[in-house]
């Protein structure tokens, strides 16, 4: 059990920067997900924490101790591979005992701890089975147990659920979360699946193009994305981001004066330093309400398509040149071709700088 700190950690393969000057501080016992599209550097980050990859520059600390040059064998991390990397030519018992035997622990102690771990992982009845005969869920438990038995300072998991079908993944996710709580382990979990990250992690580190975009709790990342990438990457369907123009007390969408959306002073204060009136206006599909066309404060859009998913209607809309989505409850079901009025919940809307794509921060105000 350790805290982990990455300080300006960079990884370069030739000319290619895989991870760029990453700062990340993971608390003891925390469950952190590193989330991002494939090729964003999340696996490289994890491999550097594990010591599988050297860092090009920067420092990695476990509990404040510099481990940057400690080789992978000595670093004391637990690692769960995407395919679990179970030693299929060995029995479950031999898999569990492997790490302890390598450390040269006395046989009696190995046996005792293997039994304890098997008990804990509910694998006791399978101890002498060939590990190639295990079910996926037993494999996951064995993979975690095999790492946990040597009491690693942190646990790293490389998309362990990505090979599973959707229904089973949910069950395994719950099990993983339970194991993490019971082991009280610091865990770092790499995934490209935002639902998995949102459901599992205490905090999420969102990465893109080798750069850490945002590191915060799932709620904050959802409600206050740091930039356009995070805003679009988190949430399904993802956030609508439309070109807009700053006006007096609000924004106009797509250059149509009729589509003027009044914004609160609080949100307008975010645009105070912009040099041009162009801005990106972001709002989640859930934060739209249906209203009469041309009613005050609303803007108009045409319905292209309506998908019904469970209890929700996902409505594809077009306004001016922009396509975007709205999510309504089952009750509100506009028909394709219809022109509708939309009200944006401006308390949950955001403005982004069109050049840097960073979110524009409103001025701090004293509430209540």
């Amino acid at each position: 059990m350790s805290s982990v700190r990455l300080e300006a950690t960079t990884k370069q393969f030739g000319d290619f920067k895989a991870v760029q000057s990453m700062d990340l501080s993971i608390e003891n016992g925390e469950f952190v997900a590193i989330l991002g599209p494939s090729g964003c550097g999340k696996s490289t980050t994890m491999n550097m924490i594990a010591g599988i990859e050297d860092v090009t520059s920067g420092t990695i600390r476990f509990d404040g101790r510099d481990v940057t040059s400690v080789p992978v064998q000595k670093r004391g991390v637990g690692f769960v591979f995407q395919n679990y990397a179970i030693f299929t030519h060995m029995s479950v018992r031999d898999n569990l005992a492997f790490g302890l035997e390598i450390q040269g622990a006395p046989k009696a102690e190995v046996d005792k701890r293997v039994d304890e771990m098997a008990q804990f992982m509910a694998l006791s009845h399978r101890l002498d089975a060939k590990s190639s005969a295990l079910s996926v869920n037993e494999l996951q438990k064995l993979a975690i147990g095999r790492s946990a038995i040597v009491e690693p300072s942190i646990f790293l998991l490389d998309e362990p659920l990505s090979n599973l079908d959707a229904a089973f993944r949910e069950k395994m996710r719950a099990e993983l979360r339970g194991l993490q709580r019971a082991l009280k382990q610091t865990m770092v979990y790499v995934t490209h699946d935002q639902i998995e990250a949102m459901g599992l992690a205490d905090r999420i580190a969102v990465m893109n193009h080798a750069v850490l975009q945002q590191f915060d709790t799932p709620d904050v990342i959802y409600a206050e994305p740091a930039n356009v990438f995070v805003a679009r990457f988190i949430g399904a369907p993802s956030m609508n981001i439309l070109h807009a123009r700053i006006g007096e007390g609000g924004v106009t969408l797509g250059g149509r004066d009729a589509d003027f959306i009044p914004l609160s002073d609080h949100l307008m204060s975010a645009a105070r330093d912009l040099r041009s009136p162009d801005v990106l206006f972001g709002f989640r599909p859930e934060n739209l309400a249906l209203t009469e066309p041309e009613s005050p404060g609303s803007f108009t859009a045409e319905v292209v398509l309506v998908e019904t998913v469970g209890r929700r209607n996902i409505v594809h809309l077009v306004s001016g040149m922009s396509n975007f989505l709205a999510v309504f409850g089952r009750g509100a079901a506009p028909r394709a071709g219809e022109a509708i009025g939309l009200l944006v919940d401006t308390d949950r809307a955001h403005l982004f700088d069109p050049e840097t794509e960073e979110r524009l921060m409103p001025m701090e105000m004293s509430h209540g």
Partner: protein
Amino acid sequence: MTDTALPSEKHSGAANAPADGLAESRQSLAKRLILPTQILLVFIVAFPLIMQIYISLTWWTPLDGEPWYRAYQSWNWFDNYVEIFGDPGLHGAIWRTLLFVIIAVPIEFGLGLLLAALFYEGVAARPIFYSLILMPMMIVPAVAGYIFFLIFQQTGPLNAFLGLFWEGAYDVNWLNDVNRAFFAVVVADVWQWTPLMFLILFAGLMSVPQDQMRAATILGANWRQRFWRIALPRIKAVIFIALGLRVIECFKIFDMLFVMTGGGPGVATESLSLYLYKQTFQSLEWSYVAAIGITVLVVLSVITAVILARTNKKEDA
């Protein structure tokens, strides 16, 4: 009646003609395709086998001046087979062949494994070294025999090299001494076939999943522990194939020995194959050689059947 029923009516009442006819024509194609091989097998296996069994039950030799099918005139039942048990020349040849296998194959395996491990851990300029290391096994075995005939000459390069360190090196006669000649042919065989072991074992090592090796590393295993506890156990089947191939080939070894030593000095390097060759062309006791041949076939068939049964069982498990 639907349209789909029409074609089968045309086919003179054969109800499910399309499916059955197709399966039948594929079967007959397959049978025609294997025909040439079957004919060749009858020609080279079945017919000669019967002939050999027949000859082995007589005293016939080509010196008789009688064609082989008249061999029944000297019918002797199993006398040739009885003779096998009292033939010191044959026993010596079998013993030397076994000794050769016992000495050469483990050395080849050990060196091949060492090389495979070195390559697996990573070496510089790997493709170049890989090609160079494989060279010996591509040399025509008879030519390899000649190469080592040259090397082990009393006035040859080996003694010239040893002479740099030791005055008496030029007095060492390699191929005319019983023990040294045996040593020399083992060296030649190790030189030529270690690359084969390496080739197969390295391919095996490369098939070990990377993630398992990494997992072992993260659990603290050093490369030696990874090699012995993860990689080697995983390539057991490959090791079995490599050893099996070499053992079989060692029992067949002829070309290299024939060119290098001719089995000599005396019978010091006379393998089973060389013994059979000498019996065939020097003693011309063809019926006796035929009997030995049949015995060898039976023994080898039993061994291979046992091995195949074992491997099949392993695959099922």
